[in-house]
């Protein structure tokens, strides 16, 4: 049986619960999980103060309730499954390296910052800085996958070094800013200044996008790898038409103030 936590008291101030991950609760019974220490504002409390715990830690956790103020869930996760039935707060899956997190609702800022592996699926919207680097650090996401089915805001994949981010809806400004490598797909519209300062990596968008003056037009072609990528994304529930699967894409390269080895591919119907 998996571990089930349902929130019985709504926190008044942010709750930081980095211990709530399937690997850190492995082998613990409900009593032991209830006794785990988490941070409520500036004081230490126990999981039991806010959650009713059922079941046993066997590699999967289900969380229920209004978790919009709960931060750092699934931090450093290495394996297992974490399912959040509702909205969730900031810093979901910080630096995770394995396992899968699913959020049925919306997520706050910083989804999967500096993650190295595993998968995060957000069924609703996410905010700023998904898959990004923290302020002051040079590299963001190192690997793994982030799938956001709704919209996302600014600085998606800031400083991203590897891995895949897919946004089903629209993305804000500065998508893939300072990107070192990796792939970002935006199926909706993309804001301005995408790929600013990127060294390598690919940003793929389905709608016309404004390019920075440091990006130059190369050609129009059909990159074969997109077909493979899109087929895989279809199995993840993303709606990608046949036209996009087989269509042609404009290729822009940049950012010329940096290495100029990055690319932005724009679907051209």
């Amino acid at each position: 049986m998996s571990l089930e936590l349902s929130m019985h008291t709504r926190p008044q101030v942010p709750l930081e619960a980095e211990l709530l991950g399937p690997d850190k609760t492995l082998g613990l019974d409900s009593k032991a999980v209830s006794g785990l220490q988490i941070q409520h504002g500036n004081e230490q409390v126990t999981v039991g103060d806010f959650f009713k715990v059922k079941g046993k830690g066997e590699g999967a956790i289900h969380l229920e309730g209004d978790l919009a103020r709960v931060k750092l869930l699934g931090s450093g996760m290495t394996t297992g499954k974490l399912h959040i039935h509702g909205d969730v707060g900031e810093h979901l899956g910080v630096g995770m390296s394995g396992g899968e997190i699913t959020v049925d609702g919306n997520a706050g800022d910083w989804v999967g910052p500096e993650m190295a592996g595993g998968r995060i699926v957000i069924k609703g919207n996410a905010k700023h800085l998904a898959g990004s680097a923290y302020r002051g650090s040079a590299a963001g996401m190192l690997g793994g996958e982030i799938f956001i089915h709704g919209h996302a805001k600014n600085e998606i994949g800031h400083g991203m070094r590897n891995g895949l981010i897919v946004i089903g809806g629209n993305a804000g400004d500065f998508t893939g800013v300072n990107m070192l490598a990796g792939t970002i797909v935006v199926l909706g519209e993309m804001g301005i200044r995408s790929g600013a300062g990127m060294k390598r990596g690919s940003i793929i968008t389905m709608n016309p996008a404004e390019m920075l003056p440091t990006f130059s037009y190369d050609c129009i072609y059909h990159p074969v790898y997109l077909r493979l990528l899109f087929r895989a994304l279809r199995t993840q529930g993303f709606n990608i038409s046949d036209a996009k699967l087989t269509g042609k894409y404009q290729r822009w390269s940049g950012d010329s103030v940096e290495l100029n080895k990055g690319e932005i591919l724009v679907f051209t119907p």
Partner: protein
Amino acid sequence: MAENTRIVKNATCTFCGCVCDDMELTVDLDKKVITKAKNACVLGRAWFAEHQIDDRPVAMIDGKEAPLEEAIEEAAQVLVNAKFPITYGLSDTTCEAQKQAVAISDIIRGTIDTTTSVCHGPSGLAFQDIGESTSTLGEVKNRADLVIYWGGNPAESHPRHFRYSVTPKGMFIPNGKKDRTVVMIDVRKTPSAPVADILIQVKPGKDFELLWALRALVKGRKVDPQIQVMTGVPLETMTDLVERMKNCRFGVLFFGMGLTMTRGRHFNSGALLALATDLNEFTHFVAKPVRGHGNVTGADNVVSWQTGYPFGVNFSRGFPRFNPGEFTTVDTLTRGDADAALIIASDPASNFPKAAIEHLKKIPVISLDTKETSTSKLSHVAFATSTYGINTAGTVYRMDDVPIPLRPAFESPYPGDEEILFAIKKRVHELILSKCGATGATGEARVASKLML
């Protein structure tokens, strides 16, 4: 002239970030007013003239007059019992008071943030990302032969800024303005425009694109002439500017909130800092933010040397964590996270977004201000304090990070911010110690007590 007059020489004006320290104030000691402020600009004169002693109780609890000790006790109780208290403001007070505020936030494990987060906070992020190539205004005066203002209107916001950067004769600039080229880059023609030799008008919200194109040109990359359609600036103008920048002896980029508070924010400041960095391959180039409030630079310095970060610092876990967007005041209030607020010399209730103000109304607020403000009116505990630079001595930082001492003009019946914050800190500390004793907690707070008091 009145009988009882005092002349204060080399007094300091703390109205804007220029912090001019060559004021000569004439003070009528009977009426407790400043009758003349020689050398001050129009803003400075208004600042000195409008300052008089109000008739306000020194402390109020829920809008009713209260003895000072009682108010300090109440404030300390609120702060100690809060789980996510925030401290905000600090740009219009002395460094000494700022230091006490950081100590309080540390002891109560709260969050400390300054008005930097709503003005040049983005530049703070950019400094961390890119680095800052910097100098004092004195160096600018003596050496700069190319001065570029970007997204600011100093003639109206910092009227005496030009005495460092445009008009004066300097050691290597013997003919003053004649030896300098002044460039203004802005979205409109501001009243500062007449001092400029070159005026560049950029389309609103396109500063980043212009900066990026300039960076590309400095690095010798090709830029499409279509850039004019995007930014409103012809490619020839850009090429000319780049040549001037590469060939000057000492260049300076002053940037204002036209850059930091428009779409792109920290990336705009970052692009400008990166441009200055790129130019250092060719010549000496520096970039400086033109700071608004009198001692906002001091706030950045004090919070940095006490916590390691300039603003938006959280102590919930006993050590400093920096994360703008998470621990900055507007965000914390808008999300409804904070459960108490200590506001020093600032009026967020009149200039924050609506959701943030609504949350401020719901939580206990402690405010320190020289005047009655929207924030002091909604405060649970409101302290009336004396004005820094006019009644209170101390240190402030000029916008180029140079510390300048204050020479007050006359005494005020009200205590200074530092005095009240020190009293709150002391009481908060005692309360935390007794709390630790009661719960048998570690000696952590006790150790801290030795370090802080």
